[in-house]
Each structure stands twice: as C-alpha cells, then as structure tokens.
C-alpha cells in the first residue's frame, strides 16, 4: 500500500504534507513494511511520476467514459453514438474496451449480428479478452464466449526484441510481458505494438499482418529505446500529485497507474483543505487492480497540528475495514458512486443462494422448528398420551 498526498486549489500544502507523513507512519506501525515509508515513497514517486503522467493522458478517453456511463444508464443510443466514434479513432489503449462495450450495447439493443462483429473485432485485437460472469448478465457472457470459440485460433507469431531488455510489451493496449518475448496466435489485420520502459521514450509501431505473412511464420520486431531523463537530480517535493497535473477526472486513473508501477495494491490519497474557514481532511482509497475508488471520507481537522495523532487514529479506524475487505465483494457499499457502473452493471449481480443471509436464517429456523416438533412428538409418544390408534 502507498499513502500519497493529493493537492488541489483548496489544499493547505504544509498541513497536507505533515499529516500525510504522520498517517503513513501510523499505517506502517499497524501493517508493517507492506506500507511504503516516506523515504521509499518519495524516491519511487520521483522515479515513476513522469512516465505515469504521460501514460495517464493517453489512457483517459472521454468518449469511452461517456459511452460506458450511457450504457450503464441504459441510454443505449447515446452509448452507441459515443462508442462508434471511439472505435473509429483506433486509439490503441481504448480500442479493445470500446469494441467490448459497443458489443454489449448492441446486444442490449437486440442487434445480435452487429454485437457479434464488435466482439469479434475486440477478440481479434485481444484474443485472451474475457467477460467476467460475476458482473455481466449470463446471456451476454454466453454469447461472448460462443463468439470467442468460433474465432479462428491460429495466427502468426511475433518475436519482440528490445533494448533495454525487460521493457514492457503492449499489443493493442494490452500488456503481454517483458521483452524479449514471443507472442503467438497473433491474428491477421492491423495491430499496434508499444514497447515502454520508465525513463525511456516509447517505441510505437503499427503493423498490418496479412495472411501471407502469417503463413510465412515469425515476424520479428526489434526496438531500441532512447533514454529520456533530462534531470536525474530532480527530486519531487510533493510525495504525491496535484489536480493541476492530472485534472480532477484523472485522479483515479493516475493513482492506479502510479500504484501499479510502485507495486502497490491500494493507494490512499490524503488532502487537508480549508472549507469555509474550517480545516477538513479528505481521504480517498483507490484500488489499483480494479482502477476504481472507494467512497471518499472527510474528517473535521481543527487544530490539526496538536491533534495529528488523534486524527490519524480516526482515519486509520475508518480505513481498516476497507483495507481488509475485497472491494468487489460488496461494490454497492464501498465503491464511490461515480465508479459503480464499472462494477455493478445492468442486471443484478446475483449471489449464490448459500451466500445469502436469509437462506441460513430460514434453514436454522426450519431446523429449530423441526427440532421443536420432534421434541413435542417424541415427548408425547414417550408419555403415551397421543390419542391416535393405528389399526
């Protein structure tokens, strides 16, 4: 886990910085070295921030967000319009997701043939893409997997060699591994390959694989990345980031990407702000894997300098249940409203019967009732007062 300060126009810089340090140390006291120390966080943030900021801008796509939002609110024609525009742009990082959500939209509109084409295109770009049956209606999941089974499995093999070795290889916006790498079953058609390493300029190439090339065998892609660090001595004075750097909408996307690069599963953002003459601590916990945010919390922070220990414990108490519970197990309770659509989706996320509390209450009541009945019957029988004669 990593604790970062987050600054916006209302933030009180010095209070935010001191309280975040305090909170980080409190978390380390409870959770040990799994929480990065201030020194470690500062070093890693300054090492990774530049690359992440660049990445964050590429990833964010208003069209995808708008399209998803419209789909989840069942405004299907709006969703179709936004997502159709998006996939025409052929933006590498959002294309697969764009085709998947467009397919979902068309399926919801009962346009199964078009939905099949969308899913087929998504699977051509990312043959390993799946739909999580916990979050999507069973009908569409079944349909998606049928399309996947029909999809031609064979394809070409691409060998990616890069300098420096160990650079990340992304194909059509999907992480494939570290170079040198062999990507097999690569379908024909247009693909984008990005090779990236922190502090190096990205290598990007669009390739068009024809049937002929696929039959010939391996396609070899060699990339030499150029070093890109102009000022190695520069150290960030903010152990975190500000809204100026990422914009209000980019907080979760940026935190998730930074958290991923820092090897953290969760990122806690802290800001001490001044609101109508009063100081308030705002916290927001971000789940790196799901790229989503827990519901934010606020705490009154009068006399923060003197009460920092007390306030840090308050924040810890509020955060602990969230840290100890998997977000996806109860999205309605934990996920921030604006991100709920990504998890809950249309249709209900049906829990199996045995996971529902009322099932166990009924079973216990039935068992207890049975016990009472048996006791009465048994008691009556043993005393011989039951007035029924079987003949």
């Amino acid at each position, binding site marked *: *886990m990593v604790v970062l300060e987050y600054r916006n126009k209302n933030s009180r810089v010095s209070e935010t910085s001191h309280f975040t340090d305090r909170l980080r140390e409190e978390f380390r006291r*409870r*959770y*040990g*070295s*799994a*929480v*990065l120390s201030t020194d*470690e966080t500062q*070093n*890693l943030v300054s*090492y990774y921030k530049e690359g992440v900021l660049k990445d964050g801008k590429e990833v964010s796509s208003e069209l995808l967000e708008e399209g998803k939002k419209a789909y989840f609110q069942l405004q299907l024609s709006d969703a179709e319009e936004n997502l159709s525009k998006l996939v025409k742009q052929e933006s590498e990082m959002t294309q697969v997701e764009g085709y998947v959500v467009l397919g979902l939209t068309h399926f919801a509109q009962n346009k199964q043939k078009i939905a099949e084409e969308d899913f087929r295109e998504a699977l051509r770009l990312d043959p390993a893409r799946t739909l999580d049956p916990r979050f999507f209606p069973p009908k569409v999941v079944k349909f998606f997997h049928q399309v996947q089974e029909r999809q031609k499995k064979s394809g070409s093999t691409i060998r990616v060699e890069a300098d*420096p*070795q*160990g*650079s*990340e290889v992304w194909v059509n916006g999907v992480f494939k*591994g*570290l170079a040198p790498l062999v990507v097999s079953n690569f379908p024909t058609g247009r693909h984008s390959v990005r090779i990236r*390493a*922190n*502090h190096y300029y990205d290598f990007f190439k669009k390739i068009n694989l024809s049937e002929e090339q696929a039959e010939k065998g391996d396609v070899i892609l060699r990339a030499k990345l150029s*070093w890109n*660090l102009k000022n*190695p*001595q520069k150290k960030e004075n903010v152990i975190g980031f500000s809204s100026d750097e990422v914009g209000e909408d980019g907080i979760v996307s940026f935190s998730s990407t930074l958290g*991923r*690069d*820092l*090897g*953290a*599963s969760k990122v806690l953002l802290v800001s001490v702000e001044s609101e109508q003459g009063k100081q308030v601590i705002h916290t927001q916990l971000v789940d790196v894997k799901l790229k989503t945010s827990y519901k934010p919390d606020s705490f009154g922070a009068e006399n923060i300098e003197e009460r920092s220990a007390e306030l840090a414990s308050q924040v810890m108490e509020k955060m*602990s249940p969230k*840290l*100890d*519970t*998997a977000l996806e*197990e109860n999205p309605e309770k934990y996920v921030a409203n604006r991100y709920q659509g990504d998890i809950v989706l249309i249709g209900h996320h049906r829990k199996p019967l*045995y996971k529902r*509390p009322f099932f*166990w209450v009924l*079973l*216990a009541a039935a*068992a*207890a009732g*049975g*016990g009472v009945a*048996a*006791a009465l019957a*048994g*008691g009556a029988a*043993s005393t011989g007062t039951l007035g029924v004669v079987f003949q």
Partner: protein
Amino acid sequence: MRSRFFYILFVFVLSMVGCHQTHVRSASHLGKEKVEKEKVEGSVYFRFDRWTLTPEQVDLLAQKAAFLKANKESTIILEGHTDYVGSSEYNLQLGDRRARQIKLELFKQGINPGRLVVMSYGKDRPLSQSHSAEARQNERRVDFKMK
C-alpha cells in the same frame, strides 16, 4: 434418547451457521504476517559496466522466484546501484538496466512483473566513500527489498 437428539440438532445448527461466515479478508494481504524476508532480500553483484547475469546468479534467482511464488502477496523493489565511475546520467541508466535484467529473469521464472518494481539510484547512494577495487565491486549491485 431425546437429549442426544437435541445435542445432535444443536451441533448441526451451529455448524450450519458457522459455515456462513461473511468472507472478510484478513489484513495478511497487506503483509501483516511476518514472512521470511531474508530468503528474498539480498544483493546480486555485477562486473564493471555490465548488466548480464551469470548462470550461478540465474540459479540464485530461481530460488528467490520459488519463494516469491509461495508468498504471492509480496512486492519486491529492485534497486540498481553502480560505482562512481562515469556520469550521473549514464550510471542511472546502468543501474536501471541491471534492475530491469533481474526483473526480466524473475518474469521468465514465472513471477508477475507487476510485483517487481524497478528503481535506480545510479551512483547516488554509495555504501562507502572508499575508491578501492573491493569497495567499487560492492557498489555494482542490485538490492532486493521486500514489501
């Protein structure tokens, strides 16, 4: 006879209710439990201006990889260091290459690269101020830090 029946019924109901525990993750995913850090932490040393691994080092990394597979929650920070020879920028890149090479080897051994964080300090954090050959050899390394 009746008391035995009630006893069995009581145990049955208890066991059924006991089965329905809300699945709450323990804090172990944040590393609360103590793990044997020494099996992962340590250093790998390199020759002057080199970042390739010897077969012995690959074997050593295989042992670390086996331990990491058994402890799936942990993250490793790989810190690349160099001796003082050369410019800051060159050494930062060299430290980065060394750490990245270790990351690649662990990835080949089946470790999720998301758990391996590459970091380079170049020549900025020497272990000693000595310029002897032995001291310089100690600086040319990648440190493993388990989180």
